[in-house]
């Protein structure tokens, strides 16, 4: 038998060759091949001694502390999430708002040639005002129901909030989009309220379905601490007013927007 190739020897060492018996037999009688195999082994053994810096038992905790603030509220559910009906409802609603804004923009005739952009912007804002107003109304209802929830009978140990949770989850997607739009438009006041609302909706969505009276109370306190119901009512009312006054123009300039945000 010819001497074994480096590849054959390595495959033998890895336990992968089909001619194991023939190779083993050759190795018993061939010093050169045995030496060669030893040399491969020697290099790999040396590499075994290459140290890896020690990480103590607290390492996992340290990693968690570093990544926790960067994790989104909910783990990604990948493509499966896109099959959920509630997501399609939210996407459909948003698509309807965008389409309405586009159509309204196309059909509204500018009164003078100098202000077509402002007119389109006004119509767009009005459509968004209606949509956000409705969204805040729905959110207020969910929060009100939770704020007023109480055990139906004395001695009831668990309160089921699954219906409110589902609605909170449904509202979350739309809330995110409205918040981003408000941020994009420079409407910091509305963006802040929507940001607060998002935290509360997330809190509700992530609570257990069945709550003990004590846990429900703690959730109610958290909602109260944000003062979110009050804020939602104020902004909702503002939007309703805006909806009623057809000629109200959106704050067109940066200074106007700043003034409104400060207010």
């Amino acid at each position, binding site marked *: 038998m*010819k*001497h074994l*190739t*480096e*590849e054959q020897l*390595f*495959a033998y060492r*890895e336990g*992968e060759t089909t001619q194991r018996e023939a190779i083993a037999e050759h190795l018993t009688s061939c010093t*050169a*091949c045995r030496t*060669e195999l*030893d*040399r*491969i*082994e*020697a*290099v*790999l*053994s*040396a*590499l*075994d*001694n*290459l*140290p*890896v*810096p020690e*990480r103590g038992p607290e*390492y*996992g*905790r340290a*990693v*968690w502390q*570093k*990544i*926790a603030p*960067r*994790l*989104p*509220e*909910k*783990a*990604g*559910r*990948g*493509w*499966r*999430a896109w099959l959920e009906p509630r997501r399609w409802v939210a996407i459909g609603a948003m698509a309807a708002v965008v389409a309405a804004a586009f159509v309204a923009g196309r059909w509204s005739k500018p009164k003078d040639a100098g202000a077509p952009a402002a007119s389109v912007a006004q119509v767009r804002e009005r459509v968004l005002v209606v949509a956000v107003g409705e969204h805040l109304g729905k959110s207020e209802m969910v929060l009100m129901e939770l704020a007023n929830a109480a055990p139906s009978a004395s001695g009831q140990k668990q309160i089921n909030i699954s219906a409110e949770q589902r609605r909170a989850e449904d509202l979350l997607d739309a809330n995110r989009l409205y918040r981003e739009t408000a941020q994009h438009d420079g409407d910091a006041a509305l963006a802040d309220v929507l940001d607060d609302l998002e935290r509360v909706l997330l809190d509700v*969505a*992530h609570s257990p379905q069945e709550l003990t009276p004590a846990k429900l109370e703690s959730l109610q306190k958290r909602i109260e601490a944000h003062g979110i119901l009050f804020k939602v009512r104020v902004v909702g009312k503002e939007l309703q007013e805006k909806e009623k006054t057809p000629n109200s123009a959106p704050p067109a300039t940066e200074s106007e927007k700043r003034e409104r945000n400060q207010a």
Partner: protein
Amino acid sequence: MIRMSESAGRTQDREALQNAARESDAIAVERTLAGERDAFRSLVERHSQQLFRLAYRMTGNEHDAEEVVQEAFLRAYKNLGQFGSRANFGTWAYRIAANYAIDRMRQKRNEEARRQTPSALAEEQEQDPLDLVPDERPTPDRLAGNTELRKKMEEALKELSSSERTAFVMRHWEGCAIEEIAAVLKSTTSAAKNTVFRSVQKLRRALEPYVGARGVLQAKAAGAAPQPRGTEL
């Protein structure tokens, strides 16, 4: 006989522990997907050490390894829905870390290549070829400590391509199956096998002059470093 039953008992214990860990991983994954973000913490705490070891061996430095570990968990969290609950979370996270480490190594290499200015390259080309022959014959003094060998090993590992290094780390240090390596390298099993072999071959060429018969430092290597032979004698 007693020894055999003791060893069988230990194997069973180890299997039971592994199964328990896998089961609790599966529960943590389910809870995380249900919206309990803190459930992910137990997964991070359980698998960080293993991921760090892999990342360090692949990247060769602590800073990059730390980043790989963190990024792997972030990616795992964001894509947790794609993880089949019957699979092993540890293996899945491990694969994410390996893939990210490969990307990082490639990115670093590209950056380093870009940083090399044309003048530096020209200078290198104009050098006397004799100067380029490395003065690798270490003196006994230089080889007195393991530091020298360690440096040589780190250099040799750095010379491997990112695929070769990944294949070597996964196969030799982590004991991964060829199929698993192929999945990370996105190649066939026979290509992965070749990559492992190529990496060993390169490491051997680079390190054999410094390594003695038992894988320890070869102190008398200064004048008589053994040369690797060809494929046939």
